């Protein structure tokens, strides 16, 4: 998504992103329910189709590719619920997005303490 005003490596979750990502985010919002999380795990792609995810969004979910989910309109607060289905936290997600190991990502956070 082309957002010339956004800082490097940053997507502003605006109306355009919210429209693009509505189905994906709605599916992730459903993961507030444990029953829905279990149902997703039984047949992930069927669950994605039921929520109307398009090909790019389904592929991003299948590949656990967070940057691709964001490109397809995913909002991190809802995506965090998808990560939660797999027992992953925001350090795991941060490491993946920055191409670092989780340990290296945690070290980078610690280094911000100065």
């Amino acid at each position, binding site marked *: 998504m082309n957002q010339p005003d956004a800082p490097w490596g940053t997507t502003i979750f605006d109306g355009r992103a919210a429209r693009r990502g509505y189905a994906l985010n709605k599916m992730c919002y459903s993961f507030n329910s444990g029953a829905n999380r279990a149902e997703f795990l039984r047949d992930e792609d069927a669950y994605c189709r039921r929520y109307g995810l398009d090909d790019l969004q389904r592929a991003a979910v299948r590949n656990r590719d967070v940057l691709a989910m964001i490109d397809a309109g995913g909002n991190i607060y809802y995506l965090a619920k998808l990560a939660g289905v797999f027992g992953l936290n925001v350090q795991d997600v941060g490491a993946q997005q920055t191409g670092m190991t989780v340990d290296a990502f945690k070290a*980078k956070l610690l280094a911000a303490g100065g």
Partner: protein
Amino acid sequence: MARIVGGIGTSHIPAIGLAMARNQCAEPYWKPFFDAYAPVRAWLDEVRPTVAVVVYNDHGLNFFLDKMPAFAVGAAPEYRNADEGWGLPTLAPFAGDAELSWHLIESLAAADFDLTTCQEMLVDHGFVVPMQLLWSGKRDCPVRTIPIHVNTVQHPLPSPARCLRFGETLGRAIEAWSRDERIVVLGTGGLSHQLDGRRAGFINRPFDLFCLEKIVDEPEVLARLTIPELVENAGTQGPELIQWLIMRGALGPVVRQIQRNYHVPISNTGSGLLLLEKAA
């Protein structure tokens, strides 16, 4: 008459709730963070507020993108917590004060703030983590609560300037309430953090320290920032500072700082803590 006894700015990071649930507070990673809350808890024990107005942002528990209010005020007799999907234990409900809620709603609306009113409202970690940090260990939470949600999820977000004015109006409304209450206002979230994108893990210590300093005596400096400037300097989730500005606005022009702390990192975030009293 009701009186504002103080304002507290605090993080609301979910990992804090997990650390408390797992009894990790004394571990080296967590101890300095939790220790900084001891003076604030002692202050609360002394001042004994009866009501907490909690300004936070919902992160996808009560509100989805089908309906996203800029400002939503709870007007319920109680507020329930619920499963957010990633393992934070669900807490017991928090008592509300619907009469005070409606007084605040009417006062804010009379000052041209258009609100969403919620007679049912699930409260997520943005609300419950600060409540746990400040009052956990009490068998029953000793305060009634008024949750105020601010949209920091879907842009456009309310501007810092509007939030400071919202807080000023909120403060006047609180002090016009006829009942004898001691009210504390919590501004939650922040400070710098970015969870998403290739810039994930961005934390800006100098900017956070600048915000912690300016919000005490010169909040209008922060109110002049734009949301894009907050994103650039504090990360995609950094605009949560607007919730602190509402808290600060409610305290009126002159305040006294009682406690200030900054700790990096907690989870992916620069965490701030600020306790302010209204100057007499």
